[in-house]
């Protein structure tokens, strides 16, 4: 343990850079997943038929082995940052789509009817009632996606990406357990932190 701490003290500048890269990759993937996933979730909730297909495809992506997915993306998009972001995006998609879908579906029918009854348009109903009321579900999806993405992002070096995975990777090559542990611990802390912060947001947006 001492060795790990000492290692961290000596390499903090390099590690900070890797953490930064890691976070940027995860954020890009997540934001993309939000931009695509929330509308897909809404569509699934509004249209049962479309919903069935969308959720099935998202499920399929989720169970695809990560390394195989990365390899495929490398073939399609070449090596580097973009392939990693796309992989993270794909992995984050399911939790976000599914939670958006469930959140919208869970909104009390009598409240929906109240919204309709006072004369909201479909869009207003979505914006003023359904989404605010499913926000905590959506946050819980983002939370799940973020934790997964932080983990998956450690595989980035396999397809030429950066981030904390690089340190783990070189640790493996150099047979340096301290290097591996340190970066693994940092990754775990990152995941715990994301989990905690998004958990706060989730609780904050929960409506009694």
């Amino acid at each position, binding site marked *: 343990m001492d060795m790990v701490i000492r290692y961290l003290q000596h390499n903090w500048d390099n590690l900070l850079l890797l953490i930064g890269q890691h976070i940027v990759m995860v954020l890009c993937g997540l934001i993309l997943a939000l931009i695509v996933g929330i509308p897909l979730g809404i569509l699934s909730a509004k249209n049962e038929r479309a919903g069935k297909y969308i959720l099935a495809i998202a499920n399929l992506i989720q169970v695809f082995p990560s390394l195989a997915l990365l390899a495929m993306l490398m073939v399609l998009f070449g090596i580097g940052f973009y392939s990693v972001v796309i992989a993270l995006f794909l992995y984050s998609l399911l939790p976000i789509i599914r939670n958006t879908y469930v959140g919208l579906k869970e909104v009390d029918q009598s409240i929906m009817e109240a919204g309709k009854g*006072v004369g909201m348009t479909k869009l207003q109903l979505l914006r003023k009632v359904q989404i605010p009321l499913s926000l905590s579900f959506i946050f819980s999806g983002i939370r799940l996606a973020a934790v997964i993405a932080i983990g998956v992002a450690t595989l980035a070096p396999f397809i030429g990406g950066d981030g904390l995975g690089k340190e783990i990777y070189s640790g493996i090559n150099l047979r340096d357990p301290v290097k591996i542990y340190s970066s693994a611990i940092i990754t775990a802390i990152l995941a715990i932190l994301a989990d905690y912060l998004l958990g706060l947001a989730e609780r904050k947006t929960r409506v009694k």
Partner: protein
Amino acid sequence: MIKFENVYKQYDNGHTVLKNLNLHCKEGEITVFIGPSGCGKTTTMKLINRLIEPTKGKVLVNDVDISTISPVKLRRSIGYVIQHVGLFPHMTIADNVAVVPRLLEWEEDRIQKQVKNLLDMVNLKADTYADRYPSELSGGQQQRIGVIRAFAAEQSIILMDEPFSALDPISREQLQDELIRLQKDIKKTIIFVTHDMDEAIRIADKIVLMRSGKILQEGTPEEILRRPANDFVKNFIGKKRLAQFEAIPESEEVMTRKPVTILPSRGLAESIKIMERKQVDSLMVVDTKDRLQGYITIYDVLQQFKDETKRVGDIMHTFEHVIAPDTLLNQTIELMDEHKLPYVPVVKDDQTLVGLVTRGTIVGHLSDIYSGNEGL
């Protein structure tokens, strides 16, 4: 104001819920739909703001077929209190009340003022409650908010679906009183659904009694209590309520059926003869078809007696107050007391004189009851 014309509603599962509904809800009145659970009250109400579309038939608001109005526009012009309160849990009380004004893009100043007024109206302090969330209010307070939300945009039509059902009896009566008081000033056209007969009798201008998607009877509370259309209605009203009501006699049972009358064309001397013979000091003046024209008193006759050309019709007075055969005795007494009347004539709709309620006949009736001779 609101008209249903031959309306049928069949749900997708093939269940026909409304069968040939025809109804007119008048402007400025509270129309109460009442009936056992599942009889189609809510369905009927939702037809008015197009939350439900009729399978057949038309619904008209202000003589316009509402299927030609956009549902969103229609709903914003109709206040709606939904069955299970239906406040938006993520919005503050103020935002809940302001929902429709905001949809209608009122000025923010006006909205704030309106919210405050409405909260005042139901005795909830704006300072205390405006920024709270629905879950922080009691059930009764939530229902109050549900009600004022429906009034917020000053719509002239308000739909209320069992708005007071979740309340304890005391707050319920309080809210009913508030509604009655409010309605006196603002005269909205209100459709009110309930399954509580006492509530219906208290607040309704017109009661519409439903069963299995059909209207069994409609009329004022008075009419329904007095002439229940069939046994189902009687049962629904309840024996106790009917008994209370039947205990009060109608004027027909109290009046004398042989008031002393005279034609307007008769002379004054003849009228004195009649008064002498019948031992009365005034005569009812009726035309040849028994329609009430007015009355003359012995004093008038004596004053004008010298003038031989005068006829009864020339000196008679007209009545300011008459009652119908089914006016209740308590109302009759109230009327006589208020205007210090020695008697009131009982006339049918076409003004035919059928009798006279006098202090004497009232005393006679009461003595019959208390000496146990009723019905003899």
